[in-house]
Each structure stands twice: as structure tokens, then as C-alpha cells.
């Protein structure tokens, strides 16, 4: 055990009442016991997890909490600057994290390193694109993304209820760059979205989206990807995903430590656990959703079948064809949420 870890273990043993619990605000994939229990056993602590979906929801929870309530935050990679600007995150000890084995394309230094400090580290990534049941529809049918809102699949598709990836995906389908989106692009995106809604049998969050396609309620999930199908493919081999000709959106989630945490050392150990090969393998194959681990060292732990389901060997090509989530400023974000509200109310 390294000196810092030894010191932390001594602190925990000497003052158990001070560090019996760690509070983490996370996406649902972190609630899998396969990820959490080894950490709890190793450090003799209880990890309390609060699930959320969407950075807005996380910021709302943080705003309604007291300083020090939270220790660890999982957040969309593109939203790290927002969290830093709000004073939510603490700098990470870069020398104690496995940067040398991260996939270089997902390090995202442009959003994670601010004023010379690193505030979060990428832990998992994947794609918001199109999942489908290949017994009902073929990849060739979906090659042109604009067909999704043409009415060709009316009543046969569901839409993932998260405005950033789906609006980003529609933007890609319209030939726009997600990084360059402005308010002027929103009318065209809204027009396509409203047509998409007219064809949608349902609009739902993570679990509802998975259920919709897994139960055969719909044939296509817009905004889906490996995070929907990889974990279900052993039960239903017909579930698949693809990237249309226009491309797709890459999502990336990161993990950091709260600036107001009173247990920063333990929180850093949790980050190290999640980024370890074993932690990454457990996170990649979480019961809530599967996706690629950011640390390629997880490849030593994942089985061949798991890597096949994640399309481990095809990542270089996928990374080339996908654009990052849109990263709107506050004004554009509010305008995008207004569009999404109109989409939901349609």
C-alpha cells in the first residue's frame, strides 16, 4: 500500500466516526454492487449513492444541499467547466490517477484542465446514436439519419429523453457541427425534432428507453447506442446499434471530488477505485448500462464476450465518426431546454 493510502487507512482506523460514509452523486451505472462493494470492503466505509440524470438535475440537487453534503460527483465531461465555474469541484492529484493508460481521445484536457489544474477525469464513454431490433429493421434502413424524422418509422421508434445528446444527434443529422451550435441553428433542429416526436411511440429516460426496445414495444431507439444494447444482447441477440452515415454523438462522463467535501482523501481513493482496471470493468458492464471504460487497462479484466459486446476493437473508427455532445453556454442551454420542452409537450 502506498504511503498516502496507508495514512488514509490509519486515519479511518483512528477516527472511524469521521469517515464512515462517502456520499456520491452519480449516474445509475455507479449503483451496481460489483463496482461499489469492493471499495466499501477495502476501506470499511459505506458509500451512499444518489442517482440523477442530466447535469441540470445534478446542479439542482447540489444547489438544494448544504456544503459538505457530497464528496464525489459524476458529471458529463462537457459540463466540467460549468461545475468548475460554480466552485463545485476540487483539483485532482493527477500523479495518482492512471492518465498513461486512458484512451487518448477521451482525456478531454480542453474541458478538464482549467487554469493549470485538473478538475475531473474521464471514466466512461459511449455513443448516442441509433439502437434497433435487427429482426424488424436493418442497419441499411437507418443509414440516412434523416429518415428517422421523415415519417417512415411512425409509431416504431422511441426517443431517449435527454435534450443534449438527442439535439446533438439531430444536429449531426442535419450536417451541423455540435461544437459550433448557436441559437440560429435551433429552429432547424426544432423542426426535425417535432417531426421526430410525431413518429415517436414514446419518449423516456434510461430505464424506460431500454425497456421500450428490449420488450419489443418499439423497433428503434433514437439516442440509443451500446449503453442500451450491449448489456441486453446476451438475452436478445437481435438488439444492435449503428452509426448513421452523417455520424453520431459521443458522450463522456467524468468523475471528480467536491470542493466542499470533508473527506477529500477518501473521495480521491474512490476516484482511483473507479479508474482502476477492476473498477473500470465493473463500471463498463454495470447492470444499469454498459459502455466503454476510459481506461484501456480494463481490457485485461473484461472477457472476450464483454469486449465484443462493447465493440472494443472498433473504437478507433467510431471515435473518428462521432462528435462530442454540444457544450452550450448558459443562454444557449436555456434555449435548448425550451426547445426540448416544446418537443415533450408536442
Amino acid at each position: 500500500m502506498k504511503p498516502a493510502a496507508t495514512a488514509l487507512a490509519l486515519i479511518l482506523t483512528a477516527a472511524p466516526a469521521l469517515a464512515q460514509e462517502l456520499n456520491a452523486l452519480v449516474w445509475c451505472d455507479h449503483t451496481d454492487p460489483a463496482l461499489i462493494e469492493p471499495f466499501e470492503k477495502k476501506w470499511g466505509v459505506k458509500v451512499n449513492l444518489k442517482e440523477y440524470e442530466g447535469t441540470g438535475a445534478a446542479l439542482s440537487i447540489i444547489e438544494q444541499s448544504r456544503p459538505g453534503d457530497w464528496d464525489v460527483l459524476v458529471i458529463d465531461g462537457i459540463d466540467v467547466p460549468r461545475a468548475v465555474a460554480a466552485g463545485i469541484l476540487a483539483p485532482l492529484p493527477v500523479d495518482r490517477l492512471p492518465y498513461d493508460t486512458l484512451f487518448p481521445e477521451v482525456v478531454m484536457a480542453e474541458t478538464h484542465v482549467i487554469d493549470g489544474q485538473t478538475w475531473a477525469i474521464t471514466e466512461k464513454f459511449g455513443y448516442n446514436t441509433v439502437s434497433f431490433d435487427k429482426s424488424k429493421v436493418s442497419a441499411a434502413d437507418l443509414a440516412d439519419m434523416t429518415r428517422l424524422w421523415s415519417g417512415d418509422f411512425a409509431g416504431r421508434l422511441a426517443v431517449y429523453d435527454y435534450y443534449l445528446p438527442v439535439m446533438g444527434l439531430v444536429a449531426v443529422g442535419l450536417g451541423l457541427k455540435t461544437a459550433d451550435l448557436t441559437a440560429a441553428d435551433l429552429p432547424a433542429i426544432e423542426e426535425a425534432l417535432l417531426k421526430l416526436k410525431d413518429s415517436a411511440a414514446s419518449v423516456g429516460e434510461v430505464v424506460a428507453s431500454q425497456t421500450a426496445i428490449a420488450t419489443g414495444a418499439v423497433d428503434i431507439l433514437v439516442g440509443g447506442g451500446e449503453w442500451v444494447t450491449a448489456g441486453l444482447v446476451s438475452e436478445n441477440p437481435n438488439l444492435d446499434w449503428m452509426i448513421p452515415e452523417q455520424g453520431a454523438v459521443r458522450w463522456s462522463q467524468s468523475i471528480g471530488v467536491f470542493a466542499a467535501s470533508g473527506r477529500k482523501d477518501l473521495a480521491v481513493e474512490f476516484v482511483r477505485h473507479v479508474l482502476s482496471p477492476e473498477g473500470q470493468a465493473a463500471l463498463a458492464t454495470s447492470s444499469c448500462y454498459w459502455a466503454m471504460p476510459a481506461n484501456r487497462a480494463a481490457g485485461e479484466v473484461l472477457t472476450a464476450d464483454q469486449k465484443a459486446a462493447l465493440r472494443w476493437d472498433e473504437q478507433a473508427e467510431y471515435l473518428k465518426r462521432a462528435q462530442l455532445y454540444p457544450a452550450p453556454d448558459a443562454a444557449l442551454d436555456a434555449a435548448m431546454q425550451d426547445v426540448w420542452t416544446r418537443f415533450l409537450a408536442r
Partner: protein
Amino acid sequence: MSLDAAEARRAWALTLPAVVWTVAFFVVPFMAMAALSLWQRTAAGLVPAWTLENYRAILGEPAAVRAILNSIEITLTVTALSVVLAFPLAWIIAEEVPPRWRRLALALAVLPFWTSYVVRSYAWSLMLARQGVLNGWLEGIGLPALDLANSRAATVIGFTHFFTMLLTLTIYASLTQLPPNLRRAAADLGAGPVATFHHVILPLTAPGIAVGAFLTFALCVGDYVTPQILGGGRDLAAAQLVMLNLGRRADIPMAAALSVCLMLLVTLAYLLLARFMRAPR
């Protein structure tokens, strides 16, 4: 001290706990929410702007108006359906079921209350799914499958199942208090079953119907879970819009303004139904 003064003091003493409770847990929170609805959400956080801007934004945003109208339409449909279904059910329990089975019949009527709201909604989503139980039955007898899942119809069905049982209880309570000799007197005076129902039974059970209808309206118009699970995101109800503003935008003042609008709807429903809640003399 006079007897009247002592009685009045005793009445106040007995009422005081309820008044304190209502003020502490309804009036004060409601006033706080109404005050918060006049604040503004800015990039810097919540600002006590004391403006009607959130209300103007609601009226100026077609999606918000549509969400409120959706809630009104769903609630009125559910209330009407529940009354129509609950009255005969309450009548059968009160008049047709032998007294020794009545308690069991009532227990069966309130059975839906024993399960949680979320579980009940998910159970309905399984029933109504494209490959669900209902379509299995329909296809089994050679009928075409229905596409009810993830729709307003599914939301209405889920709500109606629950509120029919609630209304059954309030209408049953009114029916059991009807003196049987009133119906006999109506018959002696030549009134047929329809006239007796229209001129005797309906007016005397109106308070039970009105109370149940009001409870249905108040609970349905502000419900988030049922449209979220059964509606499948096809319609946006006002309560879902409140949650969107709270959960995704951290816009508490806008959520408060929408909640005040819902409270105004409930108040309007009360004012419309209040005159039916009093027992006729």
C-alpha cells in the same frame, strides 16, 4: 361567564390544533411558494426580483399552456369516467350485495389503495404494452391488438382505475345514509325508477359525488407519476413540467409559479363543486 361564552371558548380550544396544523403545514408553505414564484432564476442563482415574469413566461410559452390544458383535459376525463363507473359500483355494493358480503365487497373496492402508486402504474404499463396481457387476451379471442401503451389513454386508464375506487367510497357513504322510506314515498306518489333516481337519489347523493369528484380533481391534476410512467412522454402534463423545471433546470421560481397555477385550478374546481357538497334540505 355565560354558558354561550364557555361553549365558544371550548369550541375555539378544540379547533385550535386544526387551525395551527393548517397554518403551519399548508398556509405558510403555500405563501412561501407563492412568494418564491415572484423570484427569478438567473445564471447567478435565485434572485428575489418580485416580478410576475414567471407567470408572463407561462402564458407566453405555448408548451406550458399546452401542458396545463393537457392536465385539465386528462383530469376532467378521469373525473367524469370515475363518477360514471363509481356510481353503479357503489349502488351495487349498497343495495344489491347482501349485508354479510358488503364488508368484503368494500375491502375489494379499496384493494388498489393497498399497492403503491408506482407499482400500480407499472402494473398497468405491463397490462397495456404492445405485447402485454391485454393484447394477449384480445389476440387469443381473435380480436386485433390495441396500441394503448405510452399514450394519454393509458394515463386515463391508470388514473380511472384508482379514482373509481375513491369515488365508490364517497358515493357508497352517501347511499347508505339515504332513508329507504324516501324511495318508497316516491314510488307511492307514482314516480318510476328514473324519476326517483333523478329527483330523490341523485340530489341526496350529490354531496358524496361532489366530494369524491373534487378529491379526484385535486389529486389527478397535480399527479406526476402516472403520466410519467403510463403516458410514455407523448403528452406533457403540468406536474411533469413542474418536475422538469425543478429537476433539470433548477428553476425553482418557475416551478413555484406553475404550482400556484395548479392550486388556482384546484380552487376553481372547489368553487364550482362547493354548492353540491352541502346536503339538500
